[in-house]
């Protein structure tokens, strides 16, 4: 018997081969499903799907969402998706809205917040693989009076108790957290897909906190952390919404070590804690927050990366700005005047 036919005749060996398919190339497995009925049955079976996820634990990066500058709504693709693989999102017409956040296989879309504008968010949760879009009721923001800023996040409902590994939860229950600030305080509302409604609000007393809506939140442990807008200001703060206690905490950023802080971004550390990446001059400083009471935040500098050194083209350093962080992959994106590049924090 032909050796290749002998192997392809055994389900378990076909499965072994297909388990090694690169997860960041979805077309690879899709073509395998088109080979014959048996192969299709194998790759769509629950056993294979479970083993595939267990094997490739870090979810692959299929692309990124970007948003236009305020007041320039027509720049870029309609949904702002920049693919890095053969994947293309389904049902990508977002009705003039933009991706505000994405996590655990879902994308939160809405109207970009504008200062002094009507507090209308038009939020929806979109699954870019199935194309499903679920419109959410408006969060009850009008009762808060004039808003300074707001930001929002979507996440798997089991993030509360850490009961989910988030490898296959994109069709399960989800939460949407909206954090808003007025002059007097930041506060938060939570939408639960299970209840189908917005919860009571949580708030903390802290004056003049203003979110940068272009900075997505970071999920560290069971808390969502948002960075406040003015990053150069020594008064920059982190608003932490604890999903377990439903309370808001305000914590400080790491102390500045140099006079020139250009850009700061929240990250998740390798053990799931809160971290931050800060560009000071030409150095990228990585910090991690010690576990402990939030009133006494202790930051430890874990690493310093000389950006000039990892820059292969030896170009004159002009300016770096941190542009994004991917959960699970531990990759930072930094913007330079001449383009965007990525820094793999695992390798440095």
């Amino acid at each position, binding site marked *: 018997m032909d050796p290749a036919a002998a192997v392809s005749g055994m389900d378990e060996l076909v499965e*072994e081969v297909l388990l090694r398919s690169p997860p960041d190339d979805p077309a690879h497995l899709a073509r395998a499903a*088109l080979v*014959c009925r048996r192969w299709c049955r194998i790759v769509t079976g629950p056993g294979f799907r479970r083993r595939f996820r267990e094997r490739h634990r870090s979810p692959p990066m299929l692309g990124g969402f970007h948003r236009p500058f305020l007041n320039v709504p027509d720049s870029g693709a309609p949904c702002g998706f920049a693919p890095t693989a053969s994947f293309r999102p389904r049902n990508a017409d977002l009705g003039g809205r933009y991706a505000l956040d994405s996590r655990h296989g879902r994308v939160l879309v809405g109207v970009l917040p504008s200062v002094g504008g009507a507090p209308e968010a038009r939020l929806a949760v979109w699954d870019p693989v199935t194309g499903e879009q679920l419109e959410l009721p408006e969060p009850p923001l009008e009762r808060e009076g004039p808003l300074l800023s707001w930001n929002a996040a979507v996440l798997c409902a089991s993030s509360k108790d850490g009961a989910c590994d988030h490898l296959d939860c994109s069709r399960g229950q989800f939460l949407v957290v909206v954090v808003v600030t007025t002059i007097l305080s930041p506060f938060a509302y939570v939408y639960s897909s299970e209840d189908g409604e917005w919860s009571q609000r949580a708030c903390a007393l802290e004056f003049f906190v203003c979110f940068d809506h272009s900075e997505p939140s970071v999920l560290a442990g069971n808390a969502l952390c948002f960075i406040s807008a003015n990053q150069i200001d020594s008064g920059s703060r982190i608003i932490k919404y604890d999903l377990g206690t439903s309370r808001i905490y305000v914590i400080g950023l790491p102390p500045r070590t140099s006079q020139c802080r250009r850009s700061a971004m929240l990250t998740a550390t390798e053990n799931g804690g809160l971290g931050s990446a800060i560009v000071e001059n030409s150095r990228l400083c990585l910090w991690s927050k010690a576990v402990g009471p939030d009133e006494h935040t202790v930051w430890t500098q874990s690493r310093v990366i000389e950006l000039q050194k990892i820059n292969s083209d030896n170009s004159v350093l002009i300016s770096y700005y941190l542009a994004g962080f991917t959960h699970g992959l531990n990759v930072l994106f930094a913007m330079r005047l001449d383009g965007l590049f990525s820094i793999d924090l695992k390798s440095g």
Partner: protein
Amino acid sequence: MEVDKGKGEAEETRKVAEADRDTVTLKSSDGKLFEVSKEAAARLSTVLAGMIAGGSIDDNGTDLKQIGSEALENVVDYCNKHANSIPSAALISSSISFNTAPFKEPEEWERKFVDRLSHDALFDLVEAANFLGMERLLDVTCHKISEMMKGKSPDQIREVFNIKNDYTKEELEEIRQELAWAFYDD
């Protein structure tokens, strides 16, 4: 009594000598004999480890009726090479990094090892690795086959595996549409 005791001792000595041998002899389906390091065989193959522990290794050649001589030669070659290889820095660092997938990329020598195999020998080796419970060798060979499928159309994959297309045209079109999100570049 004395004689019996002596005989017992001799038996004992022979057994010890057998246990002390640091190789085992394997016999392919076509009767060829191969020697392989006992330590490597036990470490790399769950089936051979079980046979060694259970004492079912035959000094004159343990019969492996399902494996031809070419595949068995490759298995033995792999075991010997593995025994001599020092784990690379990449392997060590990836084993302590966060979120490590259970699979570790093939090492340079493993890549070279499977790259030089013919099409038929590669598939034969997959079967042999599977039969002998050699997880790492199965990993490396299946990884190679997966790489061979990269960028190939369903038609080309069928050719590689010698598979008949049992779909109707309509069925193919239906699945293609359902999977359109994955196929932008095709």
